[in-house]
């Protein structure tokens, strides 16, 4: 069983690699949608670990995504000359650069997750949701006011002047000074995106199905009982939160290096809600459900482009209908009580 999942993981990476070879022939529009599906899968699966499996309602996932995204594109633009010098500009060099910024973005998000998680995970339910929401807004507002990463105008690259001045905008005083513009490099492709989809699915699956990982589910079901059985619930909550934040950071890095432009508004409250909706729609704590919901919720708005102005209305209506008919989510499960138990 465990050998099987390892094999499945490795073969899926091979498949992703092969598909990537033909990625060039995919229509650019579809390609974009496919990448966004991948990124949303990572976001939804990572939030599912926090909200679904561990039962902690976090509403600040976009904040972690923003940290990963912004930090990584700042690294890959401000340090572009350094990376190019050290690793070269070939596929290999770029891959190493990308791995570095990916890990940096993920780690930064995880560290912030730890910082936020330790105090706020004492809270439960609505209170935790509000705290995490507040935190995500703080991140956004801070970014909006940081000139080095473009502030509210967004960030698409860096001008590096020959005298060493670096700025995301043209500097008025240095108009005559020669400069090079380092745009955000387009590192993200099909391979990298779905490599991380495979990694997070494998990661969360293994974690949750292990004896140790059952602790996350026990925290969701009954904290008091879990504590009495020797489980450090705080530790489990924080580790779920940090893991979720790490992968949200990775998703941010992938998003930044695909879109090549980040704006603080990309990471507003609505983005967090969108991820939460994916988790709830898919069914809290259902891996396959959440992945399918990520696909649906990415494609649906695209399909509805034909009805333009009614698009968001229909989108919202569909969500309402699904929630009314299947409140446990598409693939969520309700614990069924065996009614005919006594007849046995």
């Amino acid at each position, binding site marked *: 069983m465990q050998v099987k999942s390892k094999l499945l993981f490795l073969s899926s990476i091979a498949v992703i690699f092969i598909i990537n070879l033909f990625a060039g022939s995919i229509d650019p529009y579809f390609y974009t949608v496919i990448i966004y599906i991948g990124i949303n899968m990572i976001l939804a699966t990572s939030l599912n670990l926090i909200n679904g499996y561990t039962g902690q309602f976090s509403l600040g996932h976009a904040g972690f995504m923003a940290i990963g995204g912004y930090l990584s594109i700042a690294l890959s633009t401000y340090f572009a000359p350094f990376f190019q010098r050290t690793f070269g500009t070939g596929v290999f060099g770029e891959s190493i650069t990308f791995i570095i910024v990916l890990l940096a973005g993920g780690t930064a998000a995880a560290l912030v997750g730890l910082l936020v998680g330790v105090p706020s995970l004492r809270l439960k339910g609505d209170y935790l949701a509000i705290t995490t929401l507040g935190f995500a807004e703080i991140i956004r507002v801070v970014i909006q006011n940081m000139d080095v990463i473009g502030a509210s105008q967004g960030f698409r690259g860096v001008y590096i002047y020959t005298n060493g001045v670096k700025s995301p905008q043209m500097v008025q005083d240095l108009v005559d000074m020669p400069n090079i513009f380092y745009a955000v490099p387009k590192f993200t492709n099909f391979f990298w995106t779905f490599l991380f989809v495979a990694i997070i699915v494998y990661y969360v699956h293994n974690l949750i199905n292990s*004896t140790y990982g059952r602790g996350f589910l026990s925290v969701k079901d009954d904290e008091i009982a879990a504590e009495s*059985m*020797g489980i450090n619930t705080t530790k489990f909550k924080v580790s779920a939160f940090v893991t979720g934040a790490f992968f949200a950071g990775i998703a941010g890095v992938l998003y930044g290096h695909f879109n090549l432009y980040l704006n603080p508004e990309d990471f507003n409250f609505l983005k967090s809600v969108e991820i939460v909706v994916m988790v709830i729609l898919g069914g809290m704590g259902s891996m396959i459900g959440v992945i399918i919901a990520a696909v649906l919720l990415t494609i649906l708005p695209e399909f509805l482009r034909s009805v333009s102005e009614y698009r968001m209305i229909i989108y919202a209506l569909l969500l309402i209908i699904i929630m009314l008919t299947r409140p446990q989510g598409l693939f969520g499960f309700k614990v069924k009580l065996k009614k005919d138990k006594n007849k046995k």
Partner: protein
Amino acid sequence: MRFGGLTCVDKVSTTVEENELLGMIGPNGAGKTTVFNMITGVYDPTEGDILFNNESIVPYKPYEVSKKGISRTFQNIRLFKSLSVKDNVRVSFIKNVQSKYFSSILQLPKFTKEEKEIDKKIDELLEMFDLLHEKDEYAVSLPYGDQRKLEIVRALATSPKLLLLDEPAAGMNPTEKVDLMNLIKKIKDLFSISILLIEHDMKVVMGVCERIFVLEYGKKIADGKPEEIRNDPKVILAYLGDTHAGN
């Protein structure tokens, strides 16, 4: 133990000897469950001390108390609803598990071996208490008596030295109560652990306990062998009220 100005449990002192089955009884609101919550670290006593193996366990959190070897069940059943019977028991093994976060994800050989061992131990435990045929059911779908039993098995799986049972017979019918009494005796024989039992049902308490102590309004009013307790006028007064109150 005080909650604000309300003194809930006042200067209660007793000892549970090794391998002893001590019963704790008392009318409703006497503070029995509060005593449990203090022992397991859910509440911190405002005064006094709790010693376990000559070590104060007052500063410990509930999960640390559990690691020290004290396990409990709950008055109103607290099973993990979304987990199967087997996984409910599995949770108890987490505190001692060697392969934690990263080795679980990487599925190192050590992890695979340990998972197998745990699986075996769970099966043995379930077998012992006749729950094995239900191991893949959701815990909440079990009949009431089995849910109580599963809670006890789950507590036992943490390999405690002291087991606290909070009204295990609550809501059971007479047959189930007899089963329960046998079960408690069996646990004591098989695992040779100390048990502290809260119970309202006199038949059960008198049937299994070696020693009983009685709480009323947070104070200890009696402590002794079942026969002594049965004839203790203070206990009878506490339970039945003063028959001469009207005169």
